């Protein structure tokens, strides 16, 4: 076996980012993921077009749906739900991030599916959890990040909360769902039992903010300022250089490097200035000191600063944008960013695989499916339908 999840089948009834991300992580590890969409396609398709983002490839859909087989089922038709139940019988994992109330109405909730396959591992990917007054509320990354505390721990200089890009809460919810799936598979392998495992956007966000949440739970104190202001050190900070580029300096032993730093920025007089000559004083006089340092940093381009800091053994790094990230040698060497050869679109740079297993690494094979591309293939191969069976389904409007 070369792929971790070879031979495992995942039935994917998901939309947008969180749910699809769970199963794309499993697809990357070799699972046969069958994505079920309504005739008009899941709402994630075309989202970017609606938002006015014009791209050669639907990056959003393909990011979270690469490597899957795609089928159409009109689940409003009972015959389509019958097909779904047959697929459940042939699957190991079922993933959904449709609201559970929708799943219940369509009889695609855990109780029903586990009757067809008692060993099914049912991953329920929710917004705010399956219990509570807002269990049926639709969730979105932006509101979810805010509710989950991520925005509170990501603040501007003025102490205002910010959202993180790339749909962080959705992504983390997706990662937790994949974690749940592997946990479920492991339990089943050891005991034979299937079960429902829930992961949520809110739960994932809480995991991201855990350390500061624990700080509050233990001390009653809340951090409501920019992290840089909180640390209060010019040597653990963010700077903008003359060429409008950003970089960070990350030094914890500040007293050791304060002198060398002052010399690098040619402000030796600051080294022994009684307002700034210890870490505590620098923190106390942060509002006086930082503008001085920032002003000086503005005098040279970033490259100059990064070189001098490096020579002095002071840890620093550029604040990369995506054009930098995809060229990062380390990211390429580890396969965190990959170039794949898609049969239709040729060479494309895609997000890679975040963790390497030495004997059974994951693999990205292709971009995402066209809508309904594999409907017939799946019906024939997985369910053993004949072409007559398939025609009958077509006539019933199942797909």
């Amino acid at each position, binding site marked *: 076996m070369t792929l971790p999840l070879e031979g495992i089948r995942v039935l994917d009834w998901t939309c947008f980012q969180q749910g699809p991300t769970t199963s794309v992580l499993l697809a990357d590890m070799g699972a046969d993921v069958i994505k079920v969409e309504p005739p008009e396609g899941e709402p994630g398709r075309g989202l970017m077009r609606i938002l006015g983002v014009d791209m050669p490839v639907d990056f959003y859909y393909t990011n979270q749906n690469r490597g899957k087989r795609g089928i159409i089922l009109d689940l409003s038709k009972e015959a389509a739900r019958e097909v779904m139940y047959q697929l459940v019988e042939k699957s190991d994992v079922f993933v959904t991030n449709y609201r559970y109330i929708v799943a219940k109405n369509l009889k695609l909730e855990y109780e029903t599916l586990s009757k067809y396959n008692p060993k099914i591992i049912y991953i329920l990917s929710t917004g705010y959890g399956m219990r509570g007054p807002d269990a049926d509320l639709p969730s979105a990354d932006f509101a979810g990040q805010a509710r989950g505390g991520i925005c509170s721990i990501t603040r501007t200089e003025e102490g205002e909360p910010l959202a993180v890009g790339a749909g962080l809460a959705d992504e983390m919810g997706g990662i937790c769902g994949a974690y749940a799936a592997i946990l479920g598979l492991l339990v089943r392998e050891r005991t034979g039992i299937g079960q429902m495992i829930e992961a949520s956007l809110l739960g994932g966000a809480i995991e991201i903010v855990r350390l500061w*949440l624990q700080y509050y739970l233990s001390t009653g104190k809340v951090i409501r300022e920019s992290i840089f202001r909180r640390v209060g050190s010019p040597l653990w900070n963010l700077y903008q250089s003359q060429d409008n580029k950003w970089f960070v300096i990350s030094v914890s032993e500040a007293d050791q490097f304060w002198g060398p730093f002052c010399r690098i920025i040619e402000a030796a007089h600051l080294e022994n200035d009684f307002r700034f000559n210890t870490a505590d004083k620098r923190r106390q006089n942060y509002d006086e000191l930082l503008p001085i340092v920032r002003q000086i940093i503005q005098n040279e381009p970033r490259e100059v600063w990064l070189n001098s800091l490096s020579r002095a053994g002071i840890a620093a790094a550029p604040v990369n944008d995506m054009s930098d990230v995809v060229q990062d040698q380390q990211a390429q060497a580890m396969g965190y960013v990959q170039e794949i050869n898609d049969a239709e679109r040729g060479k494309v740079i895609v997000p890679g695989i975040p963790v390497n297993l030495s004997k059974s690494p994951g693999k990205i094979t292709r971009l995402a499916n066209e809508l309904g591309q594999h409907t017939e293939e799946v019906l024939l191969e997985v369910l053993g339908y004949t072409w007559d069976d398939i025609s009958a389904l077509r006539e019933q409007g199942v797909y």
Partner: protein
Amino acid sequence: MKPLEGYLVLDWTIYHQGPLAAAHLADMGAEVIKIEPPEGDPGRDLLEKMGIDSPFNYYFHSNNRGKKGIILDLVSKEDKQLLYKLVEGSDVFITNYPYREVKDLEVDYETLTKYNSRLIYTVCSGYGLEGPEGGRSGDDLIVQARSGAMRYSSDVNDTPTAIGAGFSEAIGAITAAYGTLLALYIRERTGVGQLVDSSMFGGALEAMREWISFYGSSRKPPPISVLGTTSSPLWYFYRCKDDKWVTLSVLQPDKFWPDFCEVIGIAHLADDPKYVNADARRNNLNDLLPIIKQQMLAKPREEWLKLFAQRNIAASPLNDMSTLPEDEQVKANEYIVEVTDDKHGKVNMPFSVVKPGKTPGAITTLAPDLGEHTDEILNSLK
């Protein structure tokens, strides 16, 4: 039964990412033995070093809950032999010490698998074991900067910031735990163990997948600022009178603008040509935001949420760490649990990653004292 009951994990880690990865496994029922040098995991003293005043060592307990703790001086031949004996009976070994050091001490993957060919060996490093920076330790701020996490957390003026709470460590830890579970699953099916190479950088890039895909597909720059992209005051955060915050996430702002103005008390501005539609508001955002911010300070959050709900204006709470425990969804889904400890009494801890229906996990204890279980564990080897 707990999901990982019966598995034995040897945890030779320090600070945040490595210990936390092992703690995830402890949460799901694995027996985790934390191995520390005689002077202890430097993470034990981190809060003190950083001048953070907390009588309860929340950092160490959060990262090392549910574990047993032993002291082994891996420089000494005798203790190394004890480790090898422990490895024989273990399922997983996790480390985040710099891998060069690990090799020098002869506790690397090649060496340990001589004592246990089925061992799953998880390395948590900064950037992974391969490549020009293979084996290097990581630093949260540097990883955030390099991965794009900072650039794409910018404000409306494109000024970046960093995410708190040790972001790269946290996401690196869950990625390491994920890889370890995968390796355990493969071993259950095939009998084969392997090396799991995880890193903070890998975790942070995983978080940025959507924007990597955006750029990779088009060579166009992804949005730098979430708030700046919409540049809409109805897609924004506001502080309320009681210092709580509210999120507005209105997808059709033109439709709701007049009602919004009425609710917050600026009805006279609804038709103002500077603000009358989305484009106008985008162009005059820096004039408009202070006005709205001022209005929003007039009432407490709950009152705003009610008023907005009456007009179907999409609004929800923005939680900080003090309001998160009070959130009805957090309570109903038990995302924070109470852990009872002999020494510290009842402690509340987050517990929110996954909720298995039939085989739930649990946080059973806080972190061990230094060497608390050395005698117990080493006696069991005899």
